[in-house]
């Protein structure tokens, strides 16, 4: 929602565009995540009063930077608990004494600071839910309340999770830096995993009534784009960005007006977001040109094939099955094996697909994996075994917590009779 008056609009804009940049730099300068975050928060609160009184400054970002740094100095003077407090104070005071605020910092410094923030928020020594929350809070600028609602946990619980993560960063000295070259690929994979998890949490909400929690998808896409800007040489960064855009392009078509889930082959293609598709395909092309294949690129290529086909029947399932085969080779997981079986079933008939499901159905770890039973049911139906299909639908239904998915499974089971 866009605020009505110009001052509120300017503050909202500065918050969206500048907050993470100011925060990233101030964390480095102040040497303390929590203190920097509090100072930036103070600066935005001060902006509400000052900008209303004196007008919106010519360079809101520079204003926020200066104000946040001064608040950090004030807080450091009061707070004796920061270890190298004297050093930090001297550095911040020196920066503050420079009369001219450099209009923009060195571009590379801004990039480095934001990357430092990304890698710290996604540090493997933090639990995954903490990484997700911290990333959304520090880089996405979501409030604790918004993150709590998006993940369906109580706000105090989410608040504690974030505070604990920041305390661990300080106490265990999780470094504020971009990892060294030899660790970088591994750590970057970890960052991409956090971003994709945020997207998926939004895209296929496992619980609750709404199938898509849009704010999480938007936030993940924004983070993906940020990473494309920061780590432009990495093909998988582009691959992930493309993948999220191509999935998200179909957002409006995945749920019908009554809130029911719509399978890919039944979606109204006119509802697909053509801008997102163009953007996603361009990013995928960019990724492929970097000639470093990876799993996000493969998944994006699969999605691109599904989208580019004129309709579901004309989809090149044989090629999709092949791409899934490559994905299994790269990173075998039950999810990928299942998707491969579905694609093979569509390309070469239900019997071939069912054959690939056999080892998955025999794996006790997957007994409670709902999509497996839903796909099994679908293949059995197509193979002309309605009784077997009904049993498999029953199993899938028993494992579904999402009301929209439940309705779809019930509809499909009903259609068997």
């Amino acid at each position: 929602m866009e605020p009505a008056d110009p001052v509120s609009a300017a503050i909202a804009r500065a918050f969206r565009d500048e907050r993470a940049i100011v925060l990233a730099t101030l964390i480095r300068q102040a040497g303390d995540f929590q203190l920097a975050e509090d100072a930036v928060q103070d600066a935005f609160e001060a902006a509400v009063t000052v900008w209303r009184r004196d007008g919106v400054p010519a360079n809101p970002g520079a204003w926020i930077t200066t104000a946040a740094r001064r608040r950090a100095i004030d807080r450091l003077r009061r707070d004796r608990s920061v270890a190298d407090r004297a050093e930090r104070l001297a550095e911040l005071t020196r920066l503050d004494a420079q009369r001219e605020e450099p209009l923009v910092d060195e571009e590379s410094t801004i990039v480095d600071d934001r990357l430092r923030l990304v890698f710290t928020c996604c540090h493997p020594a933090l639990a995954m839910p903490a990484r997700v929350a911290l990333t959304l809070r520090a880089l996405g600028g979501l409030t604790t309340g918004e993150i709590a609602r998006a993940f369906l946990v109580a706000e105090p619980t989410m608040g504690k999770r974030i505070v604990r993560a920041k305390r661990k960063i300080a106490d265990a000295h999780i470094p504020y830096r971009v990892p060294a070259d030899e660790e970088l690929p591994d750590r970057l994979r970890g960052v991409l995993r956090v971003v994709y998890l945020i997207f998926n949490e939004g895209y296929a909400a496992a619980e609750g009534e709404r199938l898509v929690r849009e704010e999480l998808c938007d936030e993940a896409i924004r983070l993906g784009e940020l990473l494309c800007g920061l780590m432009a040489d990495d093909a998988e960064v582009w691959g992930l960005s493309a993948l999220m855009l191509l999935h998200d392009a179909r957002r409006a078509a995945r749920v019908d007006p009554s809130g029911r889930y719509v399978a890919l082959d039944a979606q109204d293609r006119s509802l697909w977001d053509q801008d997102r598709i163009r953007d996603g395909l361009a990013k995928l092309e960019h990724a492929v040109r970097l000639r470093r294949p990876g799993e996000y690129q493969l998944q994006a290529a699969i999605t691109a094939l599904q989208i580019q086909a004129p309709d579901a029947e004309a989809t090149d399932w044989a090629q999709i099955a092949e791409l899934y085969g490559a994905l299994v080779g790269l990173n075998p997981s039950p999810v990928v094996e299942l998707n491969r079986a579905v694609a093979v079933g569509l390309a070469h008939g239900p019997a071939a697909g069912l054959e690939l499901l056999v080892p998955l159905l025999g794996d006790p770890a997957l007994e409670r994996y709902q999509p497996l039973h839903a796909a099994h049911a679908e293949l059995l139906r197509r193979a002309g075994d309605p009784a077997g299909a009904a049993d498999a639908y029953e199993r899938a239904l028993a494992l579904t917590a999402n009301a929209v998915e439940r309705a779809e499974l019930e509809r499909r089971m009903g259609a068997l009779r």
Partner: protein
Amino acid sequence: MSQYLLLVYEEEVDPAVQAEREQVTPLLVELHASLREAGLLVSVQRLHSTESATSVRLHDGEAEITDGPFAVTKEVLAGYYVLECADLDEALKQAARLPMARWATIEVRPVIAPDDWLRVAREAGVDLPDEAVEDLA
């Protein structure tokens, strides 16, 4: 620089498996020398089995002594390192170099620096002179 305590937790195993584990000792000799040379190693100790542990608690001012470890668990504390590292990443990297990590879990804990300890105590209202920091840790 900060100090980190690396706690080695492992299952106590029968003598045959234990004899296999002893085979890493030459690797440890090498590793400890290299840690020492790099100025990272503050101390390292290996502990006797929990069968030899004794636990002490004060009960109404009386020492209550029990045979056995603090808690009976499958994995027990078998030894520890104190390392001086630049940050957590460095400590985790060193933890992953321990050959025991193949069968043991290495818990990495940041050590509270002496002046932080002093500050925390003072914040809690304890009256302490600056020199106390020398004896505290």
